[in-house]
């Protein structure tokens, strides 16, 4: 019995196995290429994904969708075997002996003429190695695979899909949310340092809204509408509660701040042991000391309380009411500033000016006459013409000799954080005790230390300095 059929069967199996393997690899390469190409083409719609990390898996569903079509559509058929054998005949110049032998084997032909074909084919194929004869040929998919992978991965790594997405905020639009977040943080800081509870609450809410917008990449129009809603809410909060106008509404912001500081000092004064000697009446020394606080004295004069004889509790309640009004007014004005900032932020292109104005109003701390009355006017909005700047410092009031000098120190570079009052010193003994002055300074220093304007490294040094003053005084 001839060995030719067995040799041919083995060779044909080797050839078909190798060709099938190459086919599978080709299909896989094609699938990966098409998946990556599709993933690249779908970049602009990645924003539709519920989670951001899912974009890294986009090629997978495409791959698994196409795979059945390609693997079934290009499955190995009988015609593929015939084609492989025709190519084998071409490569070996065997004049179609292999393909004829294969067909004769399939029909189990036993004619001598057929057996002669098998013998001759087996003789030619005996030493043939299909892998060496038909090595893998490179196609464009093989060359494109790695570059496509790198391009796609690179684009995703650098979030290019977010630039292509029409619904995702542009960098300028993202700036709105970031500006809002920055503003809200400043607002919280300011409100926290001044004890403005409503402003602090609004600041927190604004920061939450801004953070949410940044994270969820809310569309521009939607964010603007949110800004408008927030603005209305803040405006409602900033409206005066009672019908009766408070004295504080007529005061400038800086006056209110000074008044608040003086109120705190006065309350501390009243709490001192020597000031509480008379359970019912406030002593003349205490009243004299209170008279050295200019803003408080002015307010007491305006309210007709200066010449009255008040008990300590009465005076305390007057001061408490005044403090409440001042704090409320400061809170209200801060809210109005925030509302204006939100309004202007909502208007594209004016955000920068709004921010500038809001900061001038909120942190510039330069007093303008009638600032309180103009809170709702257009004066705080950007004008069409350049404005005029008023003098930063008010003329120093003429204080009586021996009046306490209330100074707010300038820390670091930048604007003054308070009004510098200059008093002409008068001869004689001061009527304010050194302890009070040191306590006041120390308190103001503590307030300033809590702000970010004092470098962290110097805070402890400053604190130690004031402690050392106190210690020296005690030693004396």
């Amino acid at each position, binding site marked *: 019995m*001839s060995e030719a059929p067995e040799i041919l069967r083995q060779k044909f199996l080797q050839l078909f196995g190798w060709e099938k393997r190459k086919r599978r690899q080709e299909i896989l390469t094609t699938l990966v290429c098409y998946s990556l190409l599709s993933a690249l083409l779908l970049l602009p719609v990645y924003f539709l994904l519920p989670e951001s990390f899912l974009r890294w898996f986009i090629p997978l569903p495409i791959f698994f969708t196409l795979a059945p079509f390609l693997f079934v559509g290009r499955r190995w*058929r*009988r*015609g593929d075997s*015939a*084609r492989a054998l*025709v190519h084998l005949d071409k490569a070996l110049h065997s*004049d*179609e*002996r292999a*393909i*004829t032998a294969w*067909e*004769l084997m399939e029909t189990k*032909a036993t*004619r*001598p*003429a*057929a*057996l*002669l*074909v098998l*013998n*001759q084919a087996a003789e030619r194929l005996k030493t043939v190695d299909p892998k060496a004869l038909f090595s893998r040929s490179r196609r464009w998919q093989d060359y494109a695979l790695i570059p496509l992978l790198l391009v796609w991965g690179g684009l995703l790594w650098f979030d290019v899909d977010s630039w292509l997405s029409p619904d995702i905020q542009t960098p300028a639009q993202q700036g709105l949310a970031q500006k809002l977040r920055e503003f809200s943080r400043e607002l919280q800081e300011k409100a926290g340092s001044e004890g403005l509870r409503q402003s602090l609450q609004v600041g927190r809410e604004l920061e939450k809204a801004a953070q949410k917008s940044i994270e969820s990449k809310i569309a521009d129009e939607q964010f603007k509408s949110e800004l408008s809603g927030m603005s209305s809410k803040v405006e409602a909060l900033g409206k005066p509660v009672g019908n009766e106008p408070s004295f504080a509404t007529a005061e400038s912001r800086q006056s209110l701040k000074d008044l608040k500081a003086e109120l705190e000092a006065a309350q501390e004064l009243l709490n001192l042991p020597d000031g509480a000697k008379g359970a019912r009446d406030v002593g003349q020394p205490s009243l004299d000391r209170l008279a050295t606080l200019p803003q408080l004295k002015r307010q007491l004069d305006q309210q007709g309380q200066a010449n009255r004889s008040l008990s300590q509790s009465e005076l305390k309640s007057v001061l408490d009411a005044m403090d409440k009004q001042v704090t409320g007014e400061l809170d209200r004005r801060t809210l109005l500033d925030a509302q204006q900032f939100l309004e202007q932020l909502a208007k594209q292109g004016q955000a920068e000016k709004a921010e500038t104005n809001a900061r001038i109003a909120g942190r510039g701390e330069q007093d303008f006459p009638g600032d309180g009355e103009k809170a709702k006017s257009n004066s705080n909005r950007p004008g069409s013409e350049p404005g005029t700047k008023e003098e930063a410092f008010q003329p120093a009031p003429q204080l009586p000799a021996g009046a306490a000098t209330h100074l707010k120190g300038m820390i670091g570079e930048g604007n003054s954080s308070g009004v510098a009052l200059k008093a002409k010193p008068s001869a004689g003994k001061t009527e304010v005790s050194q302890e009070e002055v040191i306590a006041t300074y120390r308190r103001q220093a503590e307030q300033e230390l809590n702000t970010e304007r004092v470098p962290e490294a110097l805070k402890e040094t400053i604190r130690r300095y004031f402690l050392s003053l106190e210690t020296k005084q005690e030693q004396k």
Partner: protein
Amino acid sequence: MESVAEIEQRMQSARRSFDEVKAEIARVIVGHEDLIEDIFIALVCGGHCLLEGVPGLGKTLLVRSLGEILSLSFSRIQFTPDLMPADITGTNMLTDDPSGRKVFEFQRGPIFAHIVLADEINRATPKTQSALLEAMQEQNVTVGGKLHRLEHPFMVLATQNPIEMEGTYPLPEAQVDRFFFKLVLEFPTHAELSRIAELTTASPPGALREIIDGPAILQMRQWIRDVPLAEVVKDYAVRIVLSTHPQKQQGNSAAMAQKFVLYGSSPRGLQSLILAAKARALFAGRPNVAFDDIRAMLLPSLRHRLILNLEADAEGMGAERILQEIVAQVPEITANSL
């Protein structure tokens, strides 16, 4: 039953005979190697050839030499307009039998030979041309209601002059289709002409040697039919034949047929193409048919079976060129080959 060794042996024998025939004819015929091969293939396949060429190219000498080498009887018929069918097939003559009675006796015409040269076949009337029809196809003639079988092998080699068309009767398509091959004799080259002059003006070469005889040719005819043909190779031949038909869509090749061909090849064209390819494989010492065999036998088998339209005439497109264009566009294997 034959063994593989016997098959190998007969294949070598066939190849050797083929080479010897070619070499022996080359003693008297200069050039025309392809033509000689094709005529021999047609003979062993049992087909007839239509030779086309200008006068004086050695057609008659070629056919006579072939008859001598193959030890076959040879006859020549010069076709003229007044040639009658009986002049070809033969006729019943009134003769006296040994008893003195008058009887009709069939006198065999020149058709009764192994190799018949029908010279300038297009000069005879269609009536006479058709007399060849039965003989070529059925290999017998009927005269006076009596059937007379022709001797095997039987081959008609008809010639026609492509230039001198005046007073000729072009062969009808049905008759042309009965020719296995149409062969074109090209004018000899300079070297060939020089050799012709040398051979024909000197002493004639010695008598030609008999190589094979009629029974051996008939044996080869059987061997040819045993040559295995792969399905994909057969499919290739079928697709080529289909591509010659303007009505059949065969990819790009259809455009050529649709533009220039009125009628494509008949199924006889496919039969002659495959049979000739098998014969070529056998004489090449190959046990199977290759794509190259199909391509090599394409022009002789199909060139006379294509009926071209007026556009082809106007553009000077011949059947050869159209077939070459078609075969260049038909792939060897397609997805539907098996």
